[in-house]
């Protein structure tokens, strides 16, 4: 059961109109795995993520999430797929007119018959899990960048998804906050057995959390590397991968 891939991307070609960004991509994500999608700016990693969560339709190919193709799913099937995934957007995308608690309670109110008290308890539990319980009744604008991202993760967890997609979780955060966020990802992965798909280019984060990393490239429009982050750093022959891991590494070491 654990070896059954929870996400299968098959022959995926994505792009806008006639411009192909990624061509014929294939990869799997196993249940419980923390996968990092790497790539430089404009390499199509965010586009890839948008397709995996069904926001954009690919030019061709399929994306199976727990056996259901998110590309063709419609109606109830579509909603069922969405229940299995949670997405934390880059800037949080918290609803600014609601308190943090209401942000999390929203989907619970809409999709369950739970009584109001239960929803409140669950929302506070999710906030406690990301260390934000004290901020439950604050507005998103009152939170710092790091807290907003935590709140976004708590909201993504609201319906107990199996897969959590994070879009550049550490972008714009200081190293300490960023490390705390990595810790949170590891904790959720350990305790809940969640599968993570993380788009990032923060090297320390990649080494801290990712079991596996794939790297997409704008030039060749394909995946140029797939493996454990350490192996990619130490053994990859691909010039782009070497550049990605080493240039920055030199800077980090210095």
């Amino acid at each position, binding site marked *: 059961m654990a070896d059954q891939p929870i996400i299968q991307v098959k022959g995926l070609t994505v792009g806008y109109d006639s411009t192909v960004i990624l061509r014929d991509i294939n990869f799997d994500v196993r249940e419980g795995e923390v996968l990092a999608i790497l790539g430089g700016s404009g390499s199509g990693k965010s586009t890839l993520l948008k397709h995996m969560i069904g926001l954009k339709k690919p030019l061709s190919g399929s994306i199976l999430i727990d056996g259901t193709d998110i590309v063709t799913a419609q109606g109830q099937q579509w909603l069922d797929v969405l229940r299995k995934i949670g997405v934390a957007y880059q800037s949080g995308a918290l*609803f*600014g*007119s609601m308190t943090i608690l209401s942000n999390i309670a929203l989907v*619970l109110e809409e*999709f*369950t*018959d*739970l*009584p109001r*008290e*239960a929803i*409140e*308890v*669950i929302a*506070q*539990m*999710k906030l*406690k*899990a990301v260390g934000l*319980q*004290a901020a*439950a*009744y604050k507005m998103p*604008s009152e939170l710092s960048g790091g807290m907003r991202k935590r709140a976004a993760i708590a909201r993504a*967890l609201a*319906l*107990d998804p199996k897969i959590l997609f994070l879009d550049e979780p550490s972008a714009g955060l200081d190293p300490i906050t960023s490390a705390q966020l990595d810790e949170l990802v590891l*904790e*959720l992965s*350990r*305790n*809940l057995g969640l599968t993570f798909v993380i788009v990032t280019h923060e090297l320390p984060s990649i080494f801290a959390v990712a079991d596996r990393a794939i790297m997409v490239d704008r030039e060749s429009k394909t995946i140029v590397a797939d493996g454990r982050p350490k192996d990619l750093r130490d053994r990859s022959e691909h010039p782009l991968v070497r550049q990605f891991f080493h240039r920055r590494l030199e800077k980090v070491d210095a």
Partner: protein
Amino acid sequence: MGVMEGTKQATYRLETGGDGQATLILTGRLDRDSVASVWRQSTRELRELRPKELVAQVGDVVYCDAAGISLLMEYRRIQEDNQGRIVIRDLRPQFQQLMALFELDHMVSPPKSLGPVGTAIHNIGQWAAELYCDFTAQVGFTGEIGVKLLKTILRPAGLRKRDTFLMAEKAGVNAMGITALLGFLIGLILAFQSAAAMEAFGAEIFVADLVAIALFRELGPLITALVLASRSGSAFAAELGTMKVNEEIDALTTMGLDPVQFLVLPRLIAAVCMLPLLTMFNLLFGLIGCGVVMATWDVPVSTYIERIRDAVTLGDVFGGLAKTFVFATLIAGIGCLRGLQTGTGPSAVGDSATRAVVSGIIAIVVADGVFAVVYYFLGI
């Protein structure tokens, strides 16, 4: 677990023992759907029973998600409220991790509200303070614009000409269609409506006088100003508001470029130049609209034109057009001010645009009233 596989439900049994003890046995699945079905009744029973010690037997729970944990949390909270204890027994290891992650020591309660009277007083005070600030801001802004406009007139090279022309195109040229359409329809409707009354006196020909004077003195400038306020006043506020939110206004300031000079003046000048022209365009189509109605009554075009020439004085024409300069200043000034006042948050830009249109329209109508009084005393 095979036996339980078909179970989608959660069941509970509350058994009372002696000495204030009680046992709550939970079985089945504790997920979002099943928890919803047992939550109300089980918590109510527990509240009424008030056991000193509650043992929650959860060994037969085959599935548990955050909702399930929340039910246990709620039992615990009830027990704490009733000064009782709770023991959660036999929770399966895979759910214990969930418990560890989500366990709550306490609930955070919402901040205390002031109560209806307190809130009302608070709101009135806030409203008054905002009104005062708004007033001073407008006075200050008017002065600032005045000074900078004067500087620009004395030294026109400082004006961003390309922006000004772009704004003139957006606010003026692109509004020609809607202005013409509105003018035509207003002329048509006005002629049609007044015809009924005039016909009774056999005075259809005077419809031309009525419509022309109404259009030139009042309706033309007013309607065109409303078009400008709703199209461009809101756009100015939204554009400047978005720039404020994106910190572009701050960037201009730190580059040593004055936002008023750089952003407000081009818009203001474009609006002031365009509104009179749009108004004339509007009037032309208003007269055409009226003319169409007149034509259906077989009034020759030459007679119609003759009537208008007799009825409308130069004072009417310029009196009407003079207003448009003031209207345009008000619309552009208010639009830009609202934009620059934009706060933070996702609804801020929308609020600014709304406020720009609302205060713009109020300002137009108030100014129009002032003009009516002034013109009356001047005898125009």
